[in-house]
């Protein structure tokens, strides 16, 4: 069994050498151990300010040890590091905002994860997912045909809600190539239907690819950047093949970060830019509303707050866009404090949700910071434009008896939008 396999220090060192950048060296030479990163970290805050949870310590106990020992560590040591790199950090990057030198602990944790992944030390579920990406091109082992069938089914069923609803597959020369989280075809096909309804109502020319439709990239978090690059490449290839103007990512946080910001580097794109412009459902829906392409029956009336996914609002440019969309859709939008790029991670990110039941306890403890933030707003509705945040906040709802309802933008828009007469299904015209 892999437990008995000796650790291959050379493979670990190869990862470290590949990541041996001038900025990493500058960070290691600079850090004065001032401790300012501590209180930025929700793991630290939620675990009663225990010093072992402060970010610099976590980097030191993982990547620091690997560098110091030149990769010559035991499997038991790697197992210990695993419980830090995956179970005490979601790579949310909030600590780099609090560091006087802007040191990126998250990058160091990521390098540590890559090192461990070469030795197959990684939460099991994440390794299974890597394998699923290789075999099926998505994280949930869904054959492409099944995905296409699900879309056809959802289009047909959706015609009860929107007349002549279509989900175009492999249509060329569209403005938008929409890609989803494989959770949607697997467990929440309604999500696909609702996104289709919004785009259809806005008069968008759009399509979904029959291959390269998976937007998620959990290999970014497992530390298997080879697979991460392949997943992103499949996405780019599909868009290039269909000559789509833009790739639009579904309401998912890390998928946007992977496709727009990190993917270009894994796939070695010139200038660090994706070959096809990458946008996100939050941006798309925002623009529809702003341009008046979607009309509302009325705004959402109840008090509602907004969860800023780290990968959209800190590692992405959608913080203000999400808030502007909330204002256009809701009468009583109450932001959490802190919010936007300063938002706390909910502890669903960085691979945590897919890491499964083994890590649920840890996730519930660390999620307390988010639960408290939600409670403080007093709102009973939380708009969450990210799948992992959605799962986490639903779990937090039970754990901390928040009594809230989690919604997505597409769900909310479908509830509120006024369809033009020719799109209204028969028999509902004069409701």
């Amino acid at each position: 069994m892999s437990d008995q396999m000796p650790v291959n220090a050379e493979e670990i060192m190869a990862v470290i050498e590949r990541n041996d950048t001038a900025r990493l060296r500058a960070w290691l030479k600079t850090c004065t151990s001032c401790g300012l990163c501590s209180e930025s970290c929700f793991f630290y805050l939620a675990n009663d300010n225990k010093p072992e949870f402060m970010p610099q310590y976590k980097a030191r106990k993982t990547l620091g040890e690997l560098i110091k020992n030149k990769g010559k560590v035991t499997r038991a040591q790697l197992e210990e590091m695993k419980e830090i790199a995956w179970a005490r950090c979601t790579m949310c990057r909030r600590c780099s905002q609090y560091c006087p030198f802007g040191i990126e602990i998250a990058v160091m944790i990521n390098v540590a994860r890559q090192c461990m992944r070469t030795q197959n030390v990684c939460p099991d579920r994440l390794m299974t997912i890597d394998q699923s990406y290789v075999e099926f091109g998505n994280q949930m082992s869904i054959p492409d045909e099944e995905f296409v069938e699900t879309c056809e089914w959802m289009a047909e069923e959706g015609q009860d809600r929107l007349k002549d609803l279509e989900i175009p597959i492999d249509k060329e020369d569209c403005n938008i190539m929409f890609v989803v989280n494989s959770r949607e075809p697997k467990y929440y096909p309604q999500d696909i239907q609702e996104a289709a309804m919004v785009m259809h109502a806005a008069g968008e020319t759009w399509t979904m690819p029959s291959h390269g439709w998976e937007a998620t990239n959990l290999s970014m978090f497992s530390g298997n950047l080879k697979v991460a690059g392949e997943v992103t490449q499949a996405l780019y290839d599909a868009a290039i093949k269909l000559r789509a103007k833009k790739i639009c990512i579904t309401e998912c946080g890390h998928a946007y970060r992977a496709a727009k910001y990190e993917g270009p580097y894994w796939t070695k794109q010139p200038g660090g830019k994706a070959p096809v412009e990458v946008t996100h459902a939050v941006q798309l829906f925002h623009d529809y509303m702003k341009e008046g392409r979607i009309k509302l029956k009325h705004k959402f009336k109840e008090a509602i707050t907004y969860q800023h996914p780290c990968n959209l609002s800190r590692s992405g440019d959608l913080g203000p866009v999400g808030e502007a969309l909330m204002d256009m859709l809701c009468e009583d939008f109450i932001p959490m404090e802190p919010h936007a790029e300063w938002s706390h991670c909910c502890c669903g990110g960085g691979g945590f949700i897919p890491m499964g039941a083994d890590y649920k306890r840890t996730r519930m403890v660390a999620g307390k910071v988010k639960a408290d933030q939600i409670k403080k707003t007093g709102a009973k509705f939380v708009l969450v434009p990210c799948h992992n945040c959605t799962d986490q906040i639903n779990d937090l709802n039970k754990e901390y008896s928040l009594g809230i309802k989690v919604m997505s933008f597409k769900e909310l828009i479908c509830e509120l939008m006024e369809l033009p007469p020719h799109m209204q299904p028969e028999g509902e015209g004069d409701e």
Partner: protein
Amino acid sequence: MYAFVNGPLVWIAFAVLVLGSLWQIVSLYKMSKRTDKVFYDHYNPGAAAGSVWAWLTPFGSRSWREHPGLTVGTFAFHVCLILVPLFALGHAVTLEFNRGLSWPSLPDPIADKMTLVFLAAALFLLIRRFAVPQVRIVTECRDIVVWVITVLPFLTGYLSAHKMLLDPDLMLMLHVLSGCLMLICIPFTKLAHVFLFFMTRAFIGSEFARRGTKTW
């Protein structure tokens, strides 16, 4: 010994400071051309400058604002650390006597008080290292060594100016010796943050700016 310390050693120390720092900066810069494509792809001068400036200003960053005690302590420490040696009357007089250069200076009572402020701030930072658990856990021996190296020139300078504890000439020699030690250590210890600060902040400023966000 005295002649060496107060003569050539000072020049050696300055040479090591300048050449050592240049060597560090140039070698990191050259390496970055090869390994930090992400920085050059997205370098954003405005964000880089903003990122440096916000953090050089007391309470200029969110992190400073949320930690007012440390902000006051660390700015008092650094402002005195830079101004007192640059403009101490004793230093200006030495420069004029030896090189004929006229150099602006702070009145002695002010430099004196600033030295005391510096020593108090340094003591605060040292106590914080041990009293605050999340700082203590990451404190290493070298952090203390660097602290001692930084504090010694100020302590000996104060003692020699006030002719305390030791024979003033001997104290003065210790002052120059410890000052030289600090200058020599800057490029090769954590004190390198004197110049690395600008490089790492320029990076993170640009890195967050490419995502439309910021770190202050």
